[in-house]
């Protein structure tokens, strides 16, 4: 049994009296696609926000590759190789798709400030390098048509893909997707399933997705965790979890 890539160990998050997450223990294994399901308010996005340090855990530990990250400053998480998308798309609306993706490359450094100021040849080469890497993401996600378009005016489905691309551009080891299929039609959802599969298999990235769309979960998830009221309700293979009586009662319905 390989060591977990990410380990939330009895993590708790309380806002005053309200407990968003309590005694939460989740393991993410390397190379898997893990789906997190559950009713609204179960604490799924809170869990994601805890890992990415939008919130500070009030108890417990979060271990990434054995190292406790629960007290790290928020902006250092990406540098560890943890990327995410957002439930309500957080794109840079006033920039082009290309610029959004290039910003994904931020963690690889933009060169020393004086080189940027003077636009030295080495900096131009660095910019070309970033552009080349981003182009591979564009090709992977079929975004070529939209490359120079302003994100603000794009259709919803495309914006979701751009956000996925931006997360991929940051070269993560583990990718968190917050409701990636919400608002997508069945064709787009199928395409998303193929991409997630490729991300896991070809790119070797571990994927954790919070999702309500059970067809997507069944299609590609290796393992499913169901959360409710800030705790883990059940975990296992997709079939097992969906048949679990507690899960049916709390979320899926009969």
């Amino acid at each position, binding site marked *: 049994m390989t060591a977990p890539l990410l380990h939330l160990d009895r993590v708790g998050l309380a806002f005053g009296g309200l407990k968003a997450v309590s005694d939460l223990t989740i393991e993410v294994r390397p190379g898997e696609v893990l789906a997190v399901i559950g009713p609204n308010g179960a604490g799924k996005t809170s869990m994601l926000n805890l890992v990415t340090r939008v919130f500070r855990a009030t108890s417990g530990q979060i271990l990434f590759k054995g190292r406790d990250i629960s007290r790290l400053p928020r902006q250092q998480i990406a*540098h560890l190789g943890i990327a995410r998308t957002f439930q309500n798309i957080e794109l840079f609306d006033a*920039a082009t798709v290309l610029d959004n993706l290039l910003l994904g490359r*931020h963690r690889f450094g933009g*060169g020393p*400030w004086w080189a940027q100021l*003077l636009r030295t040849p080495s900096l131009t080469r660095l910019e070309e390098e970033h*552009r080349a890497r981003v182009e591979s993401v564009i090709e992977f996600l079929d975004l070529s048509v939209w490359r120079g378009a302003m994100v603000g005016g794009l259709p919803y489905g495309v914006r979701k893909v751009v956000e996925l691309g931006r997360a991929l551009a940051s070269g993560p080891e583990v990718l968190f997707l917050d409701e990636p299929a919400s608002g997508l039609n069945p064709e787009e959802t199928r395409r998303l399933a193929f991409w997630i599969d490729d991300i896991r298999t070809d790119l070797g990235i571990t994927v954790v997705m919070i999702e309500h769309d059970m067809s997507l979960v069944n299609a590609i998830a290796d393992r499913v965790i169901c959360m409710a009221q800030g705790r883990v309700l059940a975990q296992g293979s997709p079939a097992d979890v969906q048949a679990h009586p507690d899960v049916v009662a709390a979320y899926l319905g009969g």
Partner: protein
Amino acid sequence: MRFDYHTRYRQSFALLNSPASWVLYGLLLVALLALPQFLSTYMVGELSYVLILCVAAMGLMVLTGFTGQISLGHAAFVAIGAYAHAWLMAQGLPMIVAMPLAALIAGFAGLVVGIPAIRVHGLYLAMVTLAFSVVVEQVIGLWRSVTGGFTGMLVARAELFGLSLTSPRAFYYFALAVVVLVLLGLLNLLRSGIGRSFTGVRDSEAAAYALGIDVARVKAGAFALSAAITGLAGAMMAHHIGYLTPDAFTLLLSLDLVLMVVIGGLGSLRGAILGAILISMLPNAISALKGFLPAAMSRQFGLEIFVAGAVLAFFVLFEPRGLNGRWLKIRAFLESFPLYRRDMFRRQKTYMKSERNR
């Protein structure tokens, strides 16, 4: 129709990417260099003032247009740059040393404002910067030992490597050189990692954090950079005015700078320059206009400020992307001719949603 045939990535990030652009900007440069030959000394002086304001506007644009931090008090940094420069020269430092030093001092002041301002957003930031500007104006008046207080302070003569810059023409070329250098430097910064992180912070802080951008550092840095550039403009202004008093740096100057940046078009350096040109030439244009107005109206003071307000209102209501937006639309028209679509830039109807929970 214009098509780009690029074979290397670097061609797409080049500043001038078509022969036509090279020719046009080349001609512009030649025209700017030749201008003093054809204009009166007074007009050359006016142009120098416009150039100084271009620098100040670019400074504010970095902060408000590119990093999304409102500042309604940038006159404070102009003042700090001006007084710092005058004081340093009074201590005997040559202009070539005093000016960058003054810019650094202004930049440091920007940091002093920027660091506490990290947690302050939108409207609140507007008010903090406004209050800061008023406080600085008062402090300048009260700190008589350094600034000469309300009576004022004389500025030493401008001199660069032994050449006197006191003639309007010489100062014009100096100002032009500064504008070009600042513009190129900023253009380079803004198309690199630093510039991208500015716009990232502007458009979505949450996403910026998630991509590893140190938002606090970027904001503070943007404030410092913006203040330094504006301070540089202040130092130049010190020579242009010759005698510094606090009422050259009032709230009205802050608001003028904001007008330049907004009317010019937020998020573009071209906009900063266009806006600076429009706003600084406005008083001259209005004086020319006064001849056509009924005597009663033109006699009273107030027409200038009314027109400035009307121009701003016009742009906010009908051309929110500013002069730069208009430029881009015209360019898009020319480049896509004859396939330009009438509603290419149509704005969608939006409804007010509370920004209290931003």
